[in-house]
């Protein structure tokens, strides 16, 4: 055991403790600490043993815009977009809910500019009755 181990940075320590139920061997604390100081690397056998648990429970500690991840994400977004376009993607009530919400707001705004009075069909003008009848409404048309 190396006695020159320095304490981990508080932030890293907190993150490691946040791993919760993952039981890391005491040796790992030392190895990780040394690894951060680039003084020594943890043996492969140790990493292989704990990596599945760490990956499952940990948050990313590498920079979020690390190149491989960014490239993969960008490529996925690009190809998903291309595949949707190529497949004749069409807006539906479900996948365009945002635009439909905007459309509904516009509709309600314009509708609010009208004060509508409900009338019986015979209180409509002859022209309105005639047009409604032309659309198939059951209504007497008297000119």
């Amino acid at each position, binding site marked *: 055991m190396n006695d020159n181990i320095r304490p981990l940075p508080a932030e890293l320590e907190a993150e490691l403790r946040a791993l919760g139920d993952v039981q890391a061997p005491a040796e790992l604390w030392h190895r990780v600490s040394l690894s951060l100081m680039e003084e020594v690397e943890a043996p492969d056998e140790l990493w292989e043993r704990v990596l599945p648990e760490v990956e499952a429970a940990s948050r990313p500690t590498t920079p979020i815009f690390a190149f491989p991840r960014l490239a*993969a994400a960008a490529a996925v977004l690009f190809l998903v977009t291309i595949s949707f376009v190529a497949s004749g993607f*069409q807006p539906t009530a479900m996948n365009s809910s945002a635009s439909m919400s905007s459309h509904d707001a516009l509709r309600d705004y314009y509708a609010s500019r009208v004060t509508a009075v409900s*009338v019986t*069909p015979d209180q409509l003008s002859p022209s309105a009755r005639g047009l*409604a009848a032309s659309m198939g409404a059951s209504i007497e048309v008297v000119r």
Partner: protein
Amino acid sequence: MSFARIGSVLILLSAVVGCLPQGSRPGARLSYTSGQSGNIGVAAAALPLADFVYPEDATLRQDRTYEVVDASGNLDRYREILWADGTGQFSLEIAGVAEDGLPSFSAPDAFWQSSYLTRQRYLVHYRDFRIHNENQVRRNYTWSELPGTTTMAGRNCSRYLAESVYSLGSVEFVMDQQSKLILGWIRRDGAGNLVCQMSTDALNETPNLSGVVWSQAIAPEQEYNGPPDDNLLGFSPNPVIYYPAGFSHGDQRIILSQVTYGSQIPNLHLEVLRDGLVNIMVAQQLEVIGGGGAFPEIIIAREAEIGGIRVMEGDVQSIRTYVIGSLPSQELLAVLGAMN
């Protein structure tokens, strides 16, 4: 697995999914084969729509029944005879009337005969359903072939259902499997309530057409070509600004009603908004009585609901404006309100 590797897998998956026909995709509904149970369909974009033949385009005598919910909620039924010569000429006569849910038909009186004489062209063009624009239908509807075979007028028929992706209702078509002729349709609103329907009672595809008086426009019509035509109207029509989801503008026409009826009924500017299947009629006319307000911010409109067909009538900048269709009131009010 690294994020880069996960990304690579996703790339492959998305590329594969993008290349598949829609019907093959996980979660997509597959086209049905006769005899299967359940309503199985696909997004209308995935498959070619059915290749319909419409009665008014065929050569036939079609005895049919048109049913529509009236203002009281009763079903009014009208027996009609459609004659068509295959070249675009047609005639729509009324043969029986059974209003207010009455079970038996009575012979149409002079009023009804006159009413059909004047309306027949509009009924066929604006009331009867047909696919006006396949691309619009693909965008705005899901398209299903309903299971099984049904019989109408002695013919084996398939049924197709177009359902609005915007919850604005549906149209179901009944098609003769052999001739592709449309023998019936059902229009339902967004809540699934019946608005109107047509069904064929008897069909003769080799009719004797001698003596048939083909329909004529009761008033001359012409395309509206913008401001140069405004002198025929006496006003400049207000543009339609708001379109219900999936709808777009249609042709604009002028109906020269003054030629037929005199100055009592001013000429009419008519625009039909369409979503590929369903029509909304927007008409504008110089007011006959009263001057209206001077550009009022609020439009006072009369609203009548006649079964599932709704009528809005209001004055927009001193122009009497009518908005009529089988969409929810809020949609038609918005069309009207946006014109101010």
